[in-house]
Structure formats: C-alpha cells, structure tokens
C-alpha cells in the first residue's frame, strides 16, 4: 500500500473511537489513491504525486481536532465543555458513587451474602481487600472504554497491570484458602477415624499433596506481588525516560 506508513501515523493521531477510526482511515486511503492516480495521469512523477496527494489532504492538527470533536460521544462532549479539574472530579465521583452503591446495596444489604463472606475465614480478608478495588476498576474501565469511548493507546493499556495483579491475588488466595480448609478438614477427619479400626486415614495420604500445594501457592502469591511492584516501577521509569 502506497500510503500505508502515512495512514498508520494518521490512525495513531486520531483520538476517535473504533470502528469509526479505522473506517475514516480507509476512506482517506481511497481518497489519496484517487488523487494520486489523477496526478500521475496528469503527468506528475510518482514521488511528487504521492507527496502532493498527502499535502493536499492537509491532515494537520486542525483536521484531527475537527474529527475528534465530531466523533466524541455525547458524554465526552459535555465533559470537555467543563474545566479539566471539574470534569475529572465528576467522572471519578460518579465512578466512586456507583462503586459504593454496588458494594453496599448488593453485598452488605443481603444478609446471606454477609454470612457467606464471614464463613470463609481468615483468607476472605485479603480476597475482599483485593476485591473492592476490582469493583471500582471494573466500573472505571467500562465507563472509559464503552461510554466515554476513549480508544487511545494509553487509555487502552491503562490499569491492565493492576487488574491482572488483583485477579491473581484473589485466585491464589482463594486456592490457598481452599487447601488450608481441606488440610484442617482432613486432619480432623483422621483424628476421628483413629478411633475406628480399618477407616482410611485420608489426611495421612493427602498431607504431602496439600502441603506442597499450599506452600507453592503462597510462594506464587509472593512472586506475583513482587512482580507487580517491579513492573509498576519499570512503567514509571519508562514514562520518565520517554519525556
């Protein structure tokens, strides 16, 4: 494709949601090709025709801004009319409010839900501590990607590391809790079984499997925490270097 490099650059600059962005780039591609063909048939050489076609498009900052304004969602249009601090405050305030409403209405108002959470024991504490930010991050990502439709590369990659970290913490802590619970249950089962002859000592035979799993998962959890801290540091340093 003759104009592939230019169109890739243009696509990166256009801060409009997909699929409108790729549709516009395809439309401009056909326009450039038509203009190029006409210029060549008028006698221009290929290189001059190519640069003339690109120059005549005038896809400068004003063009990009005009396209962004046209394709902004109604929510984004309303927010850009406000000063930046106020619009950010409204966005984060709305996300926090919805998050609290979800947590308090769905979870805390439902008594069986509270009993369920309490019955999980000690390991429910780190799971819930990680779970609450997941609710807020989920609402923020949904708002940003589907309502405000900010499809810039920076926004698409935002918070992915945090979500991955929290997901792994919840998953690993949940599995550790399951294994610790089984460890305790089988230990008690064996104590009861010892009173009866011929009863299968389940704890004795599963002790190795559960011990290794618990310890392995715990070390994996520590590794996830360390990796998250290191990746966050790397991202901060990379953004400073890029400035």
């Amino acid at each position: 494709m003759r104009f592939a490099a230019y169109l890739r650059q243009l696509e990166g600059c256009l801060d409009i949601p997909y699929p409108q962005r790729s549709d516009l780039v395809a439309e401009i591609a056909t326009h450039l090709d038509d203009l190029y063909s006409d210029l060549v048939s008028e006698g221009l050489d290929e290189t001059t025709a190519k640069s003339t076609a690109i120059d005549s498009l005038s896809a400068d900052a004003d063009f990009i801004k005009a396209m962004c304004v046209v394709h902004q969602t109604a929510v984004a249009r309303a927010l850009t009319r406000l000063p930046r601090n106020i619009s950010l405050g409204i966005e984060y305030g709305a996300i926090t409010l919805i998050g609290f409403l979800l947590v308090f209405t769905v979870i805390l108002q439902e008594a069986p839900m509270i009993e369920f959470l309490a019955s999980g024991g000690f390991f429910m504490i780190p799971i819930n501590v990680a779970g609450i930010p997941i609710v807020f991050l989920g609402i923020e990502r949904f708002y940003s990607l589907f309502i405000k439709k900010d499809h810039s590369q920076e926004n698409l990659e935002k918070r992915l590391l945090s979500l991955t970290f929290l997901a792994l913490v919840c998953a690993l802590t949940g599995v550790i809790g399951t294994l610790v619970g089984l460890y305790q249950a089988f230990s008690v089962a064996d104590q009861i079984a010892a009173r009866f002859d011929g009863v299968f000592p389940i704890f004795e035979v599963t002790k190795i499997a559960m011990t290794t799993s618990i310890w392995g998962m715990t070390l994996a959890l520590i590794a996830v925490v360390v990796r998250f801290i290191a990746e966050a540091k790397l991202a901060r340093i990379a953004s400073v270097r890029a400035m």
Partner: protein
Amino acid sequence: MDVERIKSACSETLVISLLREKSMHGYDMCKVIEKRSLGYFTLKHSTLYPLLHRLERDGMVKSDWGELDRGKPRKYYQLTKKGAAHHKKNVESWRELFASIGNLIPEVAT
C-alpha cells in the same frame, strides 16, 4: 472582505445540494464542486471529511461502503429526508440573504 470565510460558510449547502442529485463519495464531491464553480470553490479535503462526518452524525446524510469504482470499494454518502428538509430551509435563507444584499447594493445584483 473575508471571502474565504463566506465560501467556507457555503460548504455545507454545496455538499448537500450535490447529494440531492445522487449519492457520491468524497473525492468526487471535491472534483464536481471545483469543476462546476469553475475553480471558485475548492473544497479542501480537511474541510470536507469533518463536514460529511458531522452531517452523518446529525442524521442529514447516511453513508455506505458501496460498489467498486476503479477497482476499489468507496464510501458513498446519500441525503436523508432530514437532510433534504434542512437543505430546503438553507436555500430559503440564502435566497433571502442574496435578495437583501441585492436590494441594498444594486451593483451586486447586475
């Protein structure tokens, strides 16, 4: 007198008036406007596409990737009923404007 700004204000009316005749793609619109106006109006592509996309957003036109032209699919725009009604009002406004100018400055009308 800033004629360029006046020309720019005509862009929407010119584009919609073309689409009243038939559906067209962007490149053709630029060429037809320039040809029919004998070079007086040259619609920059950086003006045309934001305009077309705004008209589509407002429901005045609709677009579709259509038949192959020169071996490539093209995005064609066509006027909607809302666009036709809006154009009718625009034409009335322009008529009133030119009539008033003609009354005030008779040299313009000749």
